[in-house]
C-alpha cells in the first residue's frame, strides 16, 4: 500500500492552486493544439517547453502543465476527425471512420461528447494501469547495470519506428544523426569534440532548439509548400442530446479500448496509432453484425478514442520508469525532464517521488478537467479550429522564436533553430523520421556513459555488452523490433489503409 501513500502525496502536489491552474491551462492549450491540423502533440509540447522555462516554473509544475497538454492533445485530435473527416493527428485516423458519418447525420455534438467520454475512460484506465505497473517496473529496472541500459537504449531506437514503420534503416540513420549531434561539445573527460573552436558549441547543442526547429519551423515550410493556408469553411455543431442510455451503451467499448490501448502504449514499438487501430478492429469483431460500423456507430467512435488515449498514458510508463520514451511526444517530455536536471529512470521514483507522483495525480485530475472542458466548451474549440493556418502558423512560429530567444537572449540560437527547421524540411521530404534524431540527441550522453562504463569495467572487452541474460534478452527484442516491420509491417499497413479506405467509401 506504499503506492497509495505516494499517490496521496502526489495529490497534495497536484492540488496546489498554482499547479491546478497550470494543469487547466495545459489542458486547454493541449486540446487546442490537438485540434489544429499540423500541430500535433509532439510539436505543441515542443513549442511550449521554452515557455515553461522562461516562466521559471518549478519542475513539477512544468511537467504537470506539459502532461496536461499531452493529454489534451489526444482529446483535441478527434474534433477535426469528426467534423471534417481530417484527423488532427495520426492516432485520430480511426475516429474518422464512424465519427464523420455521425456528424453527417446531424449528430456531431453527440459524436464529440461520446469521444470525450471514451477518451476520459481510456485515460482513466490507463492511468490506473500506470499507477499499478510503473512502481513495479521501476523496481525491476533498479537491477539494470550499464550493459543492460546500453542494450535498452538500442532497443528503444530499434522499436521507435514502430511495427507499422516504413523503412527501419532510415530510423537507424536518423538515430545516428541524432547521436552525432549529441557528441558535439566537451565530453565527460574534458575533451573537446567537434567544436571547431566555436565558443557557442562548447556546451553542446541545446536539444530544445533542435526540437523546436525540427518540428515547428519545418511545419511552417510544409504548409507553405502545400499552399494550405486557406483553411476550412465554418463548421456547425448541433445542440447536444445525449441520454444516459447512450452513454451506458458505449461504456463496454470504451473499457475494452482503454485496456488494449494501455497495453499498446506500454509495449515498445506499438504506440497510439496501433492502439486506436486495435481498439476499432476489436469493437467491430465483438459487436459483430449488430453494429453498423462505418456508418456512424457510436461504438466505432468510442473504441478507437479510448484506445488512443489509453495508449498515450501507457506510453508514459517506459518514459518515467526507464527514461526511455517510445514515442515522439514522450521524447519531448523527456527533453523537459533532462533540461530540468532530473535524471529520468527508476531512481526518479525514489529521488523525485514528489514529482513523479505529482504528475501521475495531475494526469488523473487533468482528465476530469478535460472532460469538463470538452463537453460544454467544444463550441469554442470548433470556432478556433476555423482560424485559417495562414494566420495561425506565422503566429506559432513567432511563439517559437520568442520561446527560444528568451532562454538565452541570443540570436545565435535562433539561427540554429532556423537551420534545424530547414534541415527538418529536407528530412521530411526524404521520409527520414525526426523522432529518432531527437531521441538520439536526448539519449546520446546517457548511452555513451553506459557504454564507457561497461567497457571500462570489462577492460575494453566488447562482449561485456551482452554478458547477462537480461542484456541478451534486450538485444533479442531490439533485433526483433528491427526485423519485424519488414515482415508484418506491410500487412498491417495495408489493413489500416483498407479500413480507412472502406470508411471513406461510405461517406
Amino acid at each position, binding site marked *: 500500500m506504499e503506492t497509495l501513500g505516494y499517490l496521496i502525496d502526489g495529490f497534495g502536489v497536484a492540488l496546489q492552486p498554482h499547479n491546478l491552474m497550470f494543469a487547466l491551462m495545459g489542458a486547454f492549450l493541449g486540446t487546442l493544439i490537438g485540434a489544429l491540423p499540423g500541430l500535433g502533440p509532439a510539436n505543441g509540447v515542443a513549442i511550449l517547453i521554452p515557455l515553461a522555462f522562461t516562466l521559471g516554473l518549478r519542475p513539477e509544475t512544468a511537467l504537470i502543465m506539459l502532461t496536461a497538454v499531452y493529454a489534451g492533445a489526444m482529446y483535441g485530435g478527434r474534433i477535426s476527425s469528426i467534423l471534417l473527416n481530417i484527423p488532427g493527428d495520426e492516432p485520430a485516423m480511426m475516429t474518422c471512420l464512424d465519427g464523420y458519418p455521425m456528424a453527417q447525420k446531424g449528430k456531431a455534438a453527440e459524436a464529440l461528447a461520446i469521444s470525450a467520454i471514451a477518451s476520459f475512460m481510456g485515460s482513466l484506465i490507463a492511468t490506473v494501469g500506470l499507477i499499478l505497473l510503473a512502481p513495479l517496473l521501476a523496481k525491476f529496472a533498479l537491477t539494470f547495470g550499464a550493459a543492460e541500459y546500453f542494450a535498452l537504449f538500442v532497443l528503444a531506437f530499434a522499436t521507435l519506428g514502430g511495427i507499422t514503420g516504413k523503412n527501419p534503416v532510415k530510423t537507424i540513420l536518423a538515430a545516428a544523426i541524432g547521436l552525432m549531434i549529441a557528441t558535439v561539445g566537451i565530453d565527460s573527460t574534458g575533451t573537446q569534440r567537434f567544436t571547431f573552436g566555436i565558443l557557442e558549441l562548447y556546451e553542446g547543442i541545446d536539444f530544445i532548439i533542435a526540437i523546436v526547429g525540427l518540428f515547428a519551423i519545418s511545419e511552417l*515550410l510544409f504548409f507553405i509548400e502545400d499552399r494550405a493556408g486557406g483553411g476550412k469553411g465554418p463548421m456547425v455543431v448541433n445542440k447536444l442530446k445525449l441520454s444516459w442510455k447512450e452513454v451506458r451503451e458505449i461504456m463496454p467499448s470504451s473499457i475494452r479500448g482503454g485496456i488494449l490501448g494501455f497495453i499498446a502504449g506500454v509495449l515498445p514499438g506499438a504506440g497510439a496509432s496501433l492502439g486506436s487501430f486495435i481498439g476499432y478492429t476489436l469493437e467491430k469483431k465483438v459487436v459483430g453484425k449488430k453494429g453498423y460500423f462505418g456508418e456512424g456507430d457510436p461504438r466505432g467512435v468510442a473504441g478507437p478514442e479510448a484506445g488512443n488515449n489509453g495508449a498515450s498514458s501507457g506510453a508514459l510508463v517506459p518514459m518515467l520508469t526507464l527514461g526511455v520514451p517510445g514515442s515522439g511526444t514522450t521524447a519531448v517530455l523527456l527533453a523537459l525532464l533532462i533540461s530540468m536536471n532530473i535524471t529520468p529512470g527508476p531512481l526518479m521514483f525514489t529521488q523525485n517521488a514528489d514529482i513523479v507522483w505529482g504528475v501521475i495525480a495531475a494526469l488523473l485530475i487533468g482528465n476530469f478537467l478535460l472532460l469538463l472542458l470538452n463537453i460544454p466548451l467544444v463550441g469554442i474549440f470548433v470556432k478556433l479550429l476555423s482560424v485559417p493556418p495562414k494566420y495561425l502558423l506565422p503566429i506559432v512560429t513567432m511563439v517559437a522564436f520568442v520561446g527560444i530567444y528568451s532562454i538565452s537572449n541570443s540570436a545565435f540560437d535562433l539561427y540554429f533553430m532556423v537551420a534545424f527547421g530547414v534541415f527538418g524540411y529536407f528530412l521530411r*521530404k*526524404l521520409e527520414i523520421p525526426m523522432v529518432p534524431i531527437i531521441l538520439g540527441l536526448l539519449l546520446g550522453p546517457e548511452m555513451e556513459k553506459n557504454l564507457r562504463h561497461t567497457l571500462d569495467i570489462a577492460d575494453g572487452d566488447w562482449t561485456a555488452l551482452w554478458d547477462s541474460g537480461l542484456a541478451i534478452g534486450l538485444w533479442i527484442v531490439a533485433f526483433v523490433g528491427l526485423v519485424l516491420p519488414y515482415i508484418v509491417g506491410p500487412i498491417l499497413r495495408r489493413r489500416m489503409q483498407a479500413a480507412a479506405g472502406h470508411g471513406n467509401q461510405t461517406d
Partner: protein
Amino acid sequence: MTLNDRIFGILMLVLAVAYGWGATQFPEPFGGAESVGPETFPKVIAVVLALSSLYLIVKPDPDNAWPKGRIALELIIAVLVLIAYTLLLEPLGFILATLLAVGTLCWRMGAAPVRAYVTGGVAGVVVYLLFTFALDLALPLGVLSVLEGS
C-alpha cells in the same frame, strides 16, 4: 526516380567518414589513453551511419517531388524572412520585427496584405505586453525604446 535517397546516402556517407576521421584526431586525454576514451562512441556511430547510408545508396526509396518554380521561391522567401527576423529582432525591437515577419509570412501564405500586417502588429504588441507585464520578462524594444522614456 530514386535519386534523392542516393544523394542523401552519399552525403551521409561522407559525413560518417569525416566524423569518424575527426574522432581519431582527438587529443589524448589527460592521464594517458585507456581502452575506452572520448573517441570510442563516435567511432561506433560513424560505423552505424556509414552502413545505413550504404544501404540507402544501394536500396533507395522512391522520391517525393521537390517543389518547383513559384512554390520553391515562396519557401526561400519564408526562410529569408525567418533569417531577417532573427537579424532585426534586436536592432528593430520585438514589436516592429514581429510586425514585419509575421505580417510577411501571413501575406505570403495568402492573407490580404492589410489584414496580414495588422495580425503581425497585434500579435507583436500583445506578446510584448504579455511578456513585459504578466511574465516580467524583457523582450528587446529596439528603436521603440524612445517611447519608453517619455
